[in-house]
């Protein structure tokens, strides 16, 4: 069930009404409703993988309890590693098995050995990377004594499988989400209307921007050999916009839907394309994943303490693992490594925390320096996105060779004016609203109600206008 489908438009209002009208007397019954709704939501993709979700939930629930109850460190460590290895084992089998086997076989072939790799035809269960990371964060936090395990199985299950975040995040933390599931929730008018506005903006980004950009980006990437540099550059920019609008649109819908149910999720995007350097970009892009890796990988590895070699090593590890998390393909690994290369100079020069404030705060226009920095950061991310989008490394290199050729100065074969105009609207609204949590979070006192409602109606109409063939969200494949 996609967020941008008729199915979800029927499913969510039913859950909402039952949640606030029929099951609002008892917290436990509200949580049971959320759990049933979440399993139904997940089962509508492929009910066969529900067992995996339930198994993963049971595993982490019991290992969490066992770890807490363990009297000695050895036992605690046993339960900890059992959970981590089984979780990562599932991820390894379903997501990475074929990649490792074929890479190993390619390597052996390179040394002159002929092997027939035994690959398995396996469908990647939707959201496996996301709910595995939920479970892992819970188990790790218990191991390090940051939280106590949950005794109520329903509450823990809702934490893992809460439907707005189940298939593409944000990747939640037990410390943030569990307390909200455990306490009574009251309907809040302000939060509910804010949630609706965020859903509206998310749908606009997905249906109007991302799906339209996708048409052209796909056409250009799929036939990259037949286009000149200027068209390829447009293709890279359109993909950069597509992936942002697609994924942040999904996150907006997830956050908005969750807020309507009285639950606040972690923010996942903070207008990343207005970043002035790559460190700022990574503080604003897929925040829940970046902070997960920071807390559970980068800091345990020593973080940026220690010497320069330690910093370089840890930076490469975190970015490469982040790339690998996205998928079993060398393109994602190179994408991660490239971002590490962008990030390192900023880190080594101690300039990774100079742009902590919102750009051009209190001003309408950015300074010339900001424009240059934003432009350069965007170009660097676009180059990295080429690897992310390409079929293989060879494709990406040829694509970039095409971009940086003489034909970059030629007239582009494809120039979708209408789409670029819509993209301009997207970034203009986001620029004006960059200090807010999302682009439609207007201060109702300062904005004429006619204009405000006019904006909502226009966005709704645009969504309806472009609501054509449904496209899946890019991050569902991860």
């Amino acid at each position: 069930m996609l967020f941008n489908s008729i199915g979800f438009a029927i499913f969510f209002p039913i859950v909402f009404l039952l949640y606030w009208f029929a099951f609002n007397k008892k917290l436990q019954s509200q949580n049971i409703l959320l759990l049933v709704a979440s399993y139904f939501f997940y089962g509508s993709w492929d009910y066969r993988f529900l067992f995996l979700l339930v198994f993963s939930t049971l595993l982490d629930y019991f290992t969490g309890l066992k770890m807490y109850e363990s009297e000695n460190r050895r036992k605690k460590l046993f339960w900890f590693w059992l959970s981590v290895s089984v979780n990562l084992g599932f991820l390894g089998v379903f997501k990475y098995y074929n990649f490792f086997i074929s890479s190993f076989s390619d390597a052996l072939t390179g040394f002159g050995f002929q092997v027939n790799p035994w690959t398995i035809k396996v469908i990647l269960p939707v959201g496996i990377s996301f709910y595995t990371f939920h479970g892992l964060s819970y188990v790790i936090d218990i191991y390090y004594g940051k939280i106590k395990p949950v005794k109520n199985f329903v509450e823990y299950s809702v934490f893992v499988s809460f439907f707005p975040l189940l298939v593409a995040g944000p990747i939640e933390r037990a410390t943030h989400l569990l307390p909200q599931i455990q306490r009574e929730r009251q309907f809040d008018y302000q939060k509910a209307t804010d949630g609706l506005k965020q859903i509206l903006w998310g749908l606009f980004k997905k249906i109007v921007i991302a799906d339209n950009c996708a048409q052209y980006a796909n056409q250009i990437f799929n036939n990259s050999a037949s286009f000149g540099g200027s068209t390829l550059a447009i293709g890279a920019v359109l993909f950069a916009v597509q992936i942002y609008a697609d994924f942040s649109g999904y996150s907006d819908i997830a956050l908005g839907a969750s807020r309507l149910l009285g639950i606040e999720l972690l923010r996942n995007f903070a207008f990343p394309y207005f970043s002035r350097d790559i460190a700022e970009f990574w503080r604003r892009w897929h925040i829940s994943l970046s902070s997960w890796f920071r807390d559970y990988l980068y800091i345990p590895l020593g973080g940026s303490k220690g010497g320069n070699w330690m910093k370089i090593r840890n930076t490469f590890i975190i970015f490469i693992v982040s790339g690998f998390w996205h998928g079993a393909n060398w393109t994602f690994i190179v994408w991660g490594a490239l971002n590490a290369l962008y990030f390192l100079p900023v880190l080594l020069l101690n300039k990774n925390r100079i742009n902590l404030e919102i750009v051009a705060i209190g001003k309408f226009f950015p300074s010339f320096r900001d424009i240059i920095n934003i432009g350069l950061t965007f170009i660097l991310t676009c180059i990295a996105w080429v690897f992310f989008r390409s079929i293989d490394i060879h494709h990406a290199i040829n694509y970039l060779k095409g971009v940086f050729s003489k034909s970059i100065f030629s007239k582009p074969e494809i120039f979708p004016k209408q789409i670029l105009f819509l993209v301009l609207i997207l970034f203009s609204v986001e620029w004006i609203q960059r200090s807010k949590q999302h682009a439609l979070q207007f201060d109702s006192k300062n904005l004429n109600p006619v204009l405000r409602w006019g904006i909502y109606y226009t966005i709704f109409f645009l969504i309806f206008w472009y609501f054509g063939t449904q496209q899946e969200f890019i991050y569902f494949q991860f």
Partner: protein
Amino acid sequence: MKNFLLKLFLFISIVTISILTFYFYYEYRFREISYKESLNSIFIWGDSQAKAGFDLEKISKITGRNVYSAAKGGAGVYDFLVFTEIVPDNSVVVLSISQLAQLRGRDKNTGGIPFKSIYQLVVNHFEDLLPSIRNNLQPKELFTSSSALYPYRDTITFHEPISKFQEIYFTNGSQYQEKQKLFTYGIKRLIDKRCKLVFVEFPFHPLLVDVIIKSPFNVGTKRFNKDILKLFPKSQYDTLNITTKKRMMYDLTHLNEFGAKLITDSIFETDSLFSKQTVHWVVINGGVCE
């Protein structure tokens, strides 16, 4: 909560009413052809074969009538039903219901959302209804009066590999009888509207003809043509034998500019074509189409 639900209900109601008003306005203001305009007009329906196969300006010049073509690439039965609802009574209608339009798995179906046609599709359990509605949320002009012909080339262009057609002709035909039922319904609707009908069957490249002959659905689609003619009291089967040394086909299924002009001349210069009594089924002999 009450306030929230009330405001939400109001917002959705206003949006729904605005959108419906817009669609009604669009349908009747921009897509309906007025009775006056229709009196001296020819209406064409077909898929990309008809789009590439008729020189609309030339038809207008030869016949002295206005020409409105709803022929589009990937047009399907949904488009056809939309067309039959919009065509005014007593019109002259040229139809090209190709084998591909009957056999294709997924049509583009971008003819708009007239409610009468949707009702017919619901009643007939048409499988592609929801995708068809989704394709039509952006209203588009149904008719055009200007041609979009493929240029003449000495060599044939293979836009689609032959394997794609093999797939259509050998594996895709699961719903063709359902489609034929809907096409028949549309034709009957035009007969009820007292329209004068002409059917045109465009040629294929000989490479594709070999595939068509071996197709398990060939007999079913040919029989459909005969069944259509049975709907009329008087019909005539016309075969155009065109002899030319020049290449007529642009690719495996579409005529090029030269072929389109030649066929337009040959079909529309026939004086008796629009006689009220006889329905004409024009077949273009494929022997010259390499």
